[in-house]
């Protein structure tokens, strides 16, 4: 009996507040636009039963997504931005993780804390901090003008560049930590052996260190890519009207246009796109767990 309760309480909570809402989104995405303006009709009418329920479903909203170029562009540009910023985060994060793993052992806990500390600080505030730096009169332009590198202020805020900077900045810890975990476990004598056998330092790095940190690289890349794809805060604060991201489109469809069925359809398609990377990520995690045992 106690075991039953132990399982049932969290189970039912997740069913009611995670799975059921998800089916509601699915149902509304398949509903007639005109019917679903708030306040909308009940989800399921027990009186007419399942057949009427199925007959009412229509794919109009998904059809609508294909007719308007805005949605296509938004999905594609989200994919591109997420992909490029994942690569940039990897390029920025790998040297940091590598240096942390090679640092004297007594420094490592402090370095770890310094990497994690920004993660505990509000995400919104960290994105906001860049608004003041990247604006035309901002700190970065003032600094560059002062050093004489540029003679006119650069426009960075409200462009895709600012979005990349924002994503790299806020997700950097997610990339550094798994790579650090992989590198820290690595036996350094393997590198020494490679060098003894005639590898240069660089080729030893490519042939030994990088393959051994592969799992960390994969985990970190997914941890950046998956949330970056649905990102809302960064494009709306740092990006301009030119940077389309699907999270922002969904938000505006819902809050500004108040078109709930289309917003739901946008969400369903976004989930379908995300399923592939999520499944790949879980497989990788599983493999890693098996390798650890």
């Amino acid at each position: 009996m106690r075991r039953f309760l132990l399982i049932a309480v969290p189970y039912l909570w997740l069913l009611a507040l995670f799975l059921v809402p998800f089916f509601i989104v699915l149902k509304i995405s398949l509903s007639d636009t005109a019917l679903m303006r708030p306040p909308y009709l009940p989800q399921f009418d027990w009186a007419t039963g399942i057949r009427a329920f199925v007959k009412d479903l229509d794919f109009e909203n998904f059809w609508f997504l294909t007719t308007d170029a805005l949605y296509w562009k938004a999905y594609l540009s989200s994919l591109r931005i997420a992909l490029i910023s994942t690569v940039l985060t990897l390029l920025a994060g790998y040297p940091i993780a590598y240096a942390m793993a090679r640092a004297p052992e007594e420094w490592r806990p402090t370095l770890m804390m310094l990497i994690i500390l920004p993660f505990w600080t509000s995400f919104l505030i960290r994105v906001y901090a860049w608004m003041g730096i990247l604006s035309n009169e901002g700190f970065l332009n003032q600094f560059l003008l002062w050093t004489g590198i540029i003679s006119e202020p650069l426009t960075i805020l409200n462009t895709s560049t600012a979005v990349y900077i924002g994503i790299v900045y806020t997700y950097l810890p997610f990339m550094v930590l798994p790579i650090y975990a992989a590198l820290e476990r690595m036996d350094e004598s393997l590198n020494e052996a490679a060098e003894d056998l005639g590898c240069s330092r660089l080729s030893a790095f490519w042939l030994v260190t990088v393959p051994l940190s592969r799992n960390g690289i994969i985990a970190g890349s997914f941890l950046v890519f998956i949330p970056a794809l649905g990102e809302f805060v960064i494009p709306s604060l740092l990006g301009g009207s030119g940077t389309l991201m699907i999270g922002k489109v969904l938000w505006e469809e819902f809050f500004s246009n108040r078109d709930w069925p289309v917003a739901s359809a946008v969400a369903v398609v976004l989930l379908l796109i995300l399923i592939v990377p999520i499944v790949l990520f879980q497989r990788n995690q599983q493999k890693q767990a098996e390798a650890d045992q």
Partner: protein
Amino acid sequence: MRRLSWFNTVSLTLGFAFLYIPMIILVIYSFNESKLVTVWAGFSTRWYGELMQNEAFLNAAWVTLKVAVFSSSIATVLGTMAAYVLVRGGRFFGRTLFSGMIYAPLVMPEVITGLSLLLLFIGIGLDRGVLTIVLAHTTFSMCYVSVVVSSRLVTFDRSLEEAALDLGCSQAEAFRLVTLPIIAPAVISGWLLAFTLSLDDLVIASFTSGPSATTLPIKIFSAVRLGVSPEINALSTILIGIVTVGVITASLVSKRRSLRLQSEERAAERAQ
């Protein structure tokens, strides 16, 4: 002692400069006298004073704190139960679905979670306010708690529990006297994680809050959408300060504890 190569020194310096300079600039400019955020006009604490007068922010901060305390506490209980079920529960009907539902919210985009919860609350006719935000935050943060707690449950020696049972403990007593103290650090960090996630959340709170209750991130977001403001700089500095003090204290406490454990172990070895 090993020394860092110049390359590693440069990457650490640049990396930490990149992570910390934006926040340091934010903190410095929060003490700027000028209303123009980019022009330095002398030191002043004026914006902190104005912030303390701003009722809307204070109310939102109070709502946020309430939501975070309630949702992280409920999430810790539910998440610990879920972790226990996942690690010790054995087989039960729908186990795959259950573990899927534990991991899915971690990777689900917030806009989708928020949208789906809002549609549920409207569907069942629940008025949006503090309660709906608490329900929403509990749901996603219990998943984080259960991941943290289950990683601790997996690694600890099960025979300790069995020994307690052999010595006459009931299941509940064994859990309270043996299991709980061992997983306590993970439960506490799970609570802290849930608490921070709840304080931080903008997207899900925007969907699930109504006119009667606004949280601080929602207020900050609508203020900063219009541009940088010195009041928000002051508010951000306070929040950064609280987090920094909290994290440093926590790490010092855990360091002292591990040092004490080490010296106890050494003493025990000497005694043998």
